[in-house]
């Protein structure tokens, strides 16, 4: 079966700085892929390439068989209507209210009446626990609330493909679980295909059909959660442990306090 999202030999550099090199990822219909990776390894750049906000240096991204960077703008917008994207910084329209933000795509791309749109907006806001915030301006929201409004905006049009850029960063553990459940529900009910970037391992293992790990611009693992846990690659294991010592960081981290003290004593004794 042809994958819904097909990332083929994708490379992207900004000037001399290579961010992604030769990344290959396939996401099948109805599958939920979680992308893990250190901060600044190019996860957001990957999503921006999929959305067509960036053009790959080499390779391509195909969504439903159409190569994104070769599409005409009209075709690109057609494809984008099927994709919901949740930005890392929410990227809400700050001149609009919460309600207008969430209903934006509905107003522009559907023939729904005002009442129907209001109903759908309420439904989406209810899902993310933001009932009765409709009339607030986006400047009146907290960081976590903004993120959830961004999430609601991404799912409002009931897209078949969802891209989440750290939807749970900055949320409390309970809300994180709620978002995880919404993603699972969307998958079960609508058969949504999704890519989720997260730093939260607990929800990653809950929502993932497969987990990919990006390390120094390359995708070093892409497998089911169980296989991922057992993957012997030292970087994977270090990432799972959440330990500063190991091959993950380019520069050696500062020593831990206990170790440092022991080291210090040794020096004095000598």
């Amino acid at each position, binding site marked *: 079966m042809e994958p819904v999202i097909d990332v083929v030999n994708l490379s992207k550099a900004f000037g001399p700085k290579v961010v992604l090199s030769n990344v290959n990822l396939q996401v099948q219909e109805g599958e939920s892929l979680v992308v893990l990776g250190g901060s600044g390894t190019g996860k957001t750049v990957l999503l*921006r390439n999929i*959305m*067509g*906000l960036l053009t790959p240096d080499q390779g391509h991204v195909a969504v439903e068989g159409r190569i994104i960077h070769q599409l005409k*703008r009209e075709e690109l*917008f*057609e494809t*984008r*209507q099927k*994709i919901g*994207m949740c*930005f890392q*910084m929410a*990227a*809400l*329209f*700050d001149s609009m209210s919460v309600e207008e933000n969430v209903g*934006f*795509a509905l107003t*522009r*791309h559907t023939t729904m009446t005002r009442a129907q749109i209001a109903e759908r907006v309420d439904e989406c806001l209810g899902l993310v626990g933001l009932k009765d915030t409709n009339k607030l301006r986006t400047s009146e929201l907290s960081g976590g609330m903004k993120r959830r409004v961004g999430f609601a*905006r991404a799912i409002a049009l009931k897209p078949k493909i969802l891209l989440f850029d750290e939807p749970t960063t900055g949320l409390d553990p309970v809300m994180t679980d709620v978002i995880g459940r919404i993603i699972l529900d969307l998958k079960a009910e609508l058969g949504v295909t999704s890519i989720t970037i997260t730093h939260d391992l607990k929800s990653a293992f809950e929502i993932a059909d497969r987990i990919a790990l990006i390390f120094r611009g390359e995708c070093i693992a892409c497998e089911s959660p169980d296989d991922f846990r057992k993957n012997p690659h030292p970087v994977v294991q270090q990432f799972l442990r959440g330990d500063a010592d190991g091959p993950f960081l380019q520069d050696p981290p500062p020593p831990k306090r206990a170790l440092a003290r022991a080291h210090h004593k040794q020096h004095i004794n000598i």
Partner: protein
Amino acid sequence: MLTKTLENIGAKVMGALAQAGDFAVLSGRTFRAIFKKPFDGASLLHQFNAIGVNSIPVIVLTSLAVSAVFAVQLAFGFRQFQAEGMASGVEGLAIVRELAPVIVGLMMAGRVGSAMAAELGTMQVTEQIDALECLATDPIHYLFVPRLIAGAIMVPLLTALGIYVGFWGGRMILVGVEGQSAFVYSEGFYQLLSARDFRIAMIKGLTFGIIIALVGCWRGYRAQGGAEGVGNAPTSSVVTSSLWILVMDFFITKLLLV
């Protein structure tokens, strides 16, 4: 040393050409997007208000001040050779042909062109324009088009307002202070003018409105690099559009006033 200088000049020229090309492409896309669906009436109305209605006080005040001071100069100048009667005619000529269109154009470049650049620039660096793209909305169609239409309609209207206020500004000085007859002033104001001059004034207003909107949107859309980028966008939009207003004023006058 010399090659270095030549290289620098070459790089500057290439940069300027690339910018001009970019502006031309975006302008072309804006004009083509005008008739695309969906039509966003609410946004257009908002721009009519922001560009047109909210600019009325500024335009009234500047037109009044400029026409009054020009009348003072004319009265003084023509008194030297006892030709005070000429003052009203020259006042009308100057206001309709040059002062109103150019002053309104420059004021609007400062008032609304810079606001457009700041607004779009902020949207660009906070990823709101990317969010528009992801919601399958062409930022050119959604942001540029209403501003272009509102600019193209409102700046000519404000130019007409400037002419009207200019008439009264001149009257205030020549009739009120210099003691000329009100009837003679009203007759004299239009004496040297024909319908063509008003047409040219409107064409200037239309051109300047288009320049202001396109340059403002373009500078904002191309803003990058955080607060500094957003800060530079309005400044460069005002400088660029003012320059083009003056250049186009010359060419429109030279070509149409034959």
